[in-house]
C-alpha cells in the first residue's frame, strides 16, 4: 500500500496519491487527470509500432489508487480518450472488462479537449459525462486550468512537470502536482503522455512523486 500525503486546500483536506491522483475523503472521490486512454493504440493505427502493455498497466495503477483510498467515485478531469483511433478493439475490450468487474464504482468524466474530438465513451461503460465548470463543494471541476471565481479549480491539461536544480548541470525534471492560489493542476495520469515544465509563483505548493511517495518540493524551486 502506498502512503498518501495529506494537504489542506480551499478548507478541505485532500490526500495526494503517488500514482498521480488526488483523493477527497469527505466525498470518497478520486480525481485523475489526463489518462489519455488508448494513445499507444492510436499510434499503432498510424503505423508506429509501439509495444502494448501500457493500457492494462494504467488500469492496474488506477486500481491501486482506488484501493489505497477506498474510493467510491472516480472523476476524470478531461482527456480520458486520446482520439478516435483510441477506440481500437483491444483497448476497448480491456476497459469494458475492467469496468464490468468494478460495477459499484461511480465514474464521471469532465470533458477535455481530446474528448471533444474522440467522442464520449460508450454508454454501457456507465460514465457520466459533463462539461467543465461543475461545482462540488468549494471545488470547480475543469480540464483547462483557468481561474473561476465561483470556486477553487481542479484541472489537468498541461501535464505539469517541475525542474529541480541539482549539483552543476545535474538537473532533474519530474511530473508534479501544482497547487496555485485559485487553481490546482494534476499531473497526467497516463504514462505515454509527455510533460510541460511549469514555473510556479511564490506561495504555490508543488509536489512530486518519487519511489512510491509524494514529496513536497515547494522550497526547492529556485527561480
Amino acid at each position, binding site marked *: 500500500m502506498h502512503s498518501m500525503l495529506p494537504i489542506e486546500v480551499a478548507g478541505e483536506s485532500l490526500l495526494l496519491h503517488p500514482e498521480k491522483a488526488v483523493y477527497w475523503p469527505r466525498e470518497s472521490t478520486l480525481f485523475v487527470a489526463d489518462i489519455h486512454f488508448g*494513445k*499507444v*493504440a*492510436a*499510434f*499503432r*493505427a*498510424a*503505423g*508506429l*509500432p*509501439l*509495444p*502494448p*502493455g*501500457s493500457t492494462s*498497466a494504467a488500469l492496474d495503477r488506477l486500481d491501486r489508487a482506488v484501493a489505497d483510498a477506498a474510493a467510491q467515485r472516480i472523476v476524470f478531469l478531461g482527456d480520458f480518450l*486520446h*482520439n478516435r*483511433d483510441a477506440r*481500437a*478493439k*483491444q483497448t476497448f475490450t480491456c476497459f469494458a472488462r475492467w469496468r464490468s468487474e468494478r460495477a459499484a464504482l461511480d465514474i464521471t468524466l469532465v470533458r477535455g479537449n*481530446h474528448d471533444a*474530438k474522440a467522442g464520449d465513451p460508450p454508454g454501457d461503460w456507465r460514465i457520466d459525462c459533463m462539461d467543465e465548470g461543475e461545482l462540488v463543494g468549494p471545488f470547480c471541476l475543469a480540464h483547462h486550468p483557468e481561474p473561476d471565481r465561483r470556486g477553487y479549480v481542479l484541472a489537468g491539461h498541461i501535464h505539469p512537470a517541475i525542474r529541480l536544480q541539482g*549539483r*552543476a*548541470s545535474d538537473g532533474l525534471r519530474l511530473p508534479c502536482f501544482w497547487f496555485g492560489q485559485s487553481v490546482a493542476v494534476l499531473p497526467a495520469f497516463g*504514462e*505515454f*503522455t*509527455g510533460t510541460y*515544465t511549469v*514555473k510556479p509563483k511564490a506561495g504555490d505548493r508543488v509536489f512530486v512523486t518519487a519511489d512510491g511517495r509524494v514529496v513536497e518540493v515547494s522550497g526547492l524551486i529556485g527561480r
Partner: protein
Amino acid sequence: MNDRFLPIETPISTGNSSQNVLESAVDAWFLQNGWSVFDFQREVWAAYARGGSGLIHSATGSGKTLAAWLAAVIAHTGRPGETLPLTVLWITPMRALAQDTRLALEKPIRDMNLPWTVGSRTGDTTSAERARQAKRMPSVLITTPESLSLMLTQADAREQLRHLQCVVVDEWHEMIGNKRGVQVELALARLRRWRPQLRSWGLSATLGNISEAMAVMMGTVDGGHIIEGVCDRKIVIDTLLPSGAEPFPWAGHLGFTMLGEVCDEIEATAKVGGSTLVFTNTRSQAELWYQALLAAKPDWAGAIALHHGSLDRDVRSYVEAGLKSGMLMAVIATSSLDLGVDFSPVARVLQIGSPKGVARLLQRAGRSGHAPGQVSRVTCVPTHAFEFVESLAAQRAASAGKIEARRPVTIPLDVLVQHLVTVALAGKDDTKGFEYQALLDEIRSTHAFAELAETDFDWALDFVTRGGKALHAYAEYRKVEQRDGRYLVEDAAIARRHRMAIGTIVSDASMDIRYMNGARLGHVEESFVARLSPGDAFTFAGKTLELIRVREMTAYVKPAKKIKNLVPQWAGGKMPLSTQLADSVRDVLEDIRQSRAGDAVPPEIAVIERLFRVQRAMSRIPSRDELLIEQIETREGYHLYFYPFAGRHVHTGLAALFGFRLGQLTPATFSFTVNDYGFELLSETPFVLSRRLLEGLFSSDELLASVLQSLNAAELSKRHFREIARVAGLIFTGFPGAGKSNKQLQATSGLIFDVFAQWDRDNPLLAQSTREVLERELEFQRLESVLEAMRKQRLTIIRSDRPTPFAFPLMVARLREKLSTESLSDRIARMQAVFEKVA
C-alpha cells in the same frame, strides 16, 4: 560561347574516335581557360572510358569535379542531334551546394556546346521544375541522398533511370562516417541492380582510411581505382604569435588575448584586397568573436559578418554571396563554411582555438589561396597556452601525413527499418514493393550490411509488417503488408507520411527566433529557450536580443537595451581532440621534456616557456611511457589529476569509471572534470592512494559493464534514442502546415524509449542506441586501448600543495560551472599571479 572545338553538326558515333575528338576538345577548353590537364584527370578519364569506377581524393579542391565530370562528358556521346537522356547522377551532401555544382557542371558543356542538360532535384526544387523533369529528365541530375531515396520510391523511377551510366558521390568524406553514407550505399545497391554496368565515382578529401572509403562506396563491385588528385598548391599551417611580451593565459576562459593580433591580420589582408575567414569551434564562440571584433573596430560594422548553422538560410546565403563577391572583409564562421565551392577572394584563414583534428585543419586551409600557384594557409590562433602546443602538433602531424580516418557505420538497424518501408513503397503494379530474397541480397551487397544476419533482417521485416514480437496480436497496426510473396505499402496515408520522413539527418528540437514583425533570424535549441524568461537577453546572429514571449515553436524577440549577455549554449561544441593530434601533442611534449636550457625551440613553445618551467618546478612533464598523476589537497577537498592526453570523450569515460571503482573501494563520492589533456577527480573525503589500488582502476575486468553503470548509460541511450526513433520512423514529425490535427500523433523519443524499455526490452533498436552512445560519445574502443596503455606505463605520483599548470585548466573548467563570469576571470588572474611567482 565558343563552338570551334566541337562542331556539333559532325555526326558523332560511339567509339574511340569520337572520344578522342571529345578529349581534344576538352584539352583545348582547358588551354582556353589558361589551365592544363593534370595527369590524374587523364587517369580518371582513361579508367572511366574502360568502364571503371573509383575514388578521387585530394586534400583540397584541385580539379576533382572536372576530373569526374569530363570523364563522363568524354565517354558518353549520345545520338547525333539529340540531348543525352539522364546519364549521370551527381550526389552532393548539401542542397545549398547544388546550385554551385550546377554552375560548375554547366560551364564546360556550354563553352563546348555539348548535348548535355544540367538539372537539380533537392528539397529546394520547385514543383514547376519537378513537373518539367517528370516530362524529360536532364542529362545530369544533381541531388542529395534524401532526394535520391525519395526519387527511388516513385512508380516510374526505374524507367527514368534506364540510361543511367554513372553516379558521382561528391564530398564522400562528409558522408562515409554517418548514416547518410549508409543511405547512399543502399541507393547505389538499388541502382546497380537496375543497371549492372553502372560506374560510381567518389570525390573525397584526404582521409586516413582512403581505401576503406572506396570499398564502402563500391560495395561488392570489384576493382575500383584510387586516384590521388595532385595539386599545385602548398598547404601551410602556422601559428599567430602574440605581439606583446605579457604571459599568455594558462586556461581558456573567453580567449580574447589575441583579439588585437586578429584585427591586425584582417586589416593587413584587406589592404591587399583579400578577405579573411575566421573559423571557430562552436557557434557561441563565433557569436562572441563577432561581438568582440565589432567592439574593437566599430567601423567594421557591415564589413564583417557571421555565418553558422543556426542562422536563417537567407542570412547565410547573403553572407556567402558577400564572400564570393569580395564585399566582406571578414566572416566569422563555424563548420557551416567547411563545405562548399570556392570563395576565391578568401586570402587568409584563421582558426580560433584548438584545431581538434588534422583533416579538419587541412580542409579549412584549403579555403584560401584558390588561384593557381598560390599557397593555402591556415593560421591557428591560440586562446590559451596549451593551444600553442596543439598548433605545433597539428603542423607536425600534417607534414607526416597523419590524418584521421572516418570509420563507416555498420548494420544500423534504424536505417534498415526505414529502407524496408522505402523499398516497399517503390515500383508499380506487379513490381511494387519487394521480394524477400532479392532485397536481402541487394542490401547485403552494401558494405554497411554485408554482415547482416538473417535474424536481424527478419526482425526488421517483422517490425515493419507486424510491429515486432510484442505486437503480433494487434490488428490495428499495419505499415508494410504482404501480398503474393511481395512486401508493399498499401495505405496511402502511411506512404505519404513515410515519404516526408525519409532521411537520417536529425537536428535538435529547435525553435524559430523571430522579431515581432515576423522576420526570421534563425533557430536555437528548444532547451536553451526553455531556460529563458521574458525580459532575458541573449546574443544571436550578432545581435543582442531580448525575449518577449514564446508562442508555439517560436521565440519572439526585440533588440535588447540591456548589456547583460547570455550566449546560447549550442550543442556540438565538445568535439574531442583526435587520436592523431593527441599523439602528436605527446610527441611535442616529449621534445619539450628533453630540451635543455638554451636549446633552440619553436616560437610556439618559446611563447609559453614559462608554463613548462613552472610545471617542471612543481611536478614534471611526463614522458611517453609514463602516466603522471598529481595529488593535491585544497579547501575544496582531495583532488587527483590524471593526464592520459586522449581527448575529452575518453577522459569522460575514464573519470566516471575511476570514480565508480574508487567509490566501490572507499566510501567516497567523486565529482569529475575533463578536458582534452586529462581529468580531475575530486572527493570531499580523504582516501589513500596506493599503487595496488591504482592498478585495480586500470583493470579491464568487466570494463564495459562498469563504464555503462558509472555513466548512467541508460540516460545517455535514452537521449541518443531520438536519432534512432526518428530514422526508424517511430516519431512522426508532422506535415508542414498540417496544423493541429497531427499533434495527437506526436510523442517525444524519450516517451517512446520508456515504452520500449518497459514493454519490449529486447527490441534491437534499444541495444543500437547504447552501442552508438559507446562509439560516438565515449569512443569506447579508444578508451580500451588507452587503458591498456596505462597498464604498461610507469606511474608517477606527485603530491603538490597547489594545482600545477597542467591541473590549472581543469580546475578552472570546474570553477566555471560554479561562478559567474566576472568573478571567475578575476579569480583566474589572481590564481595565475600566485603561480607566476614559482617560476
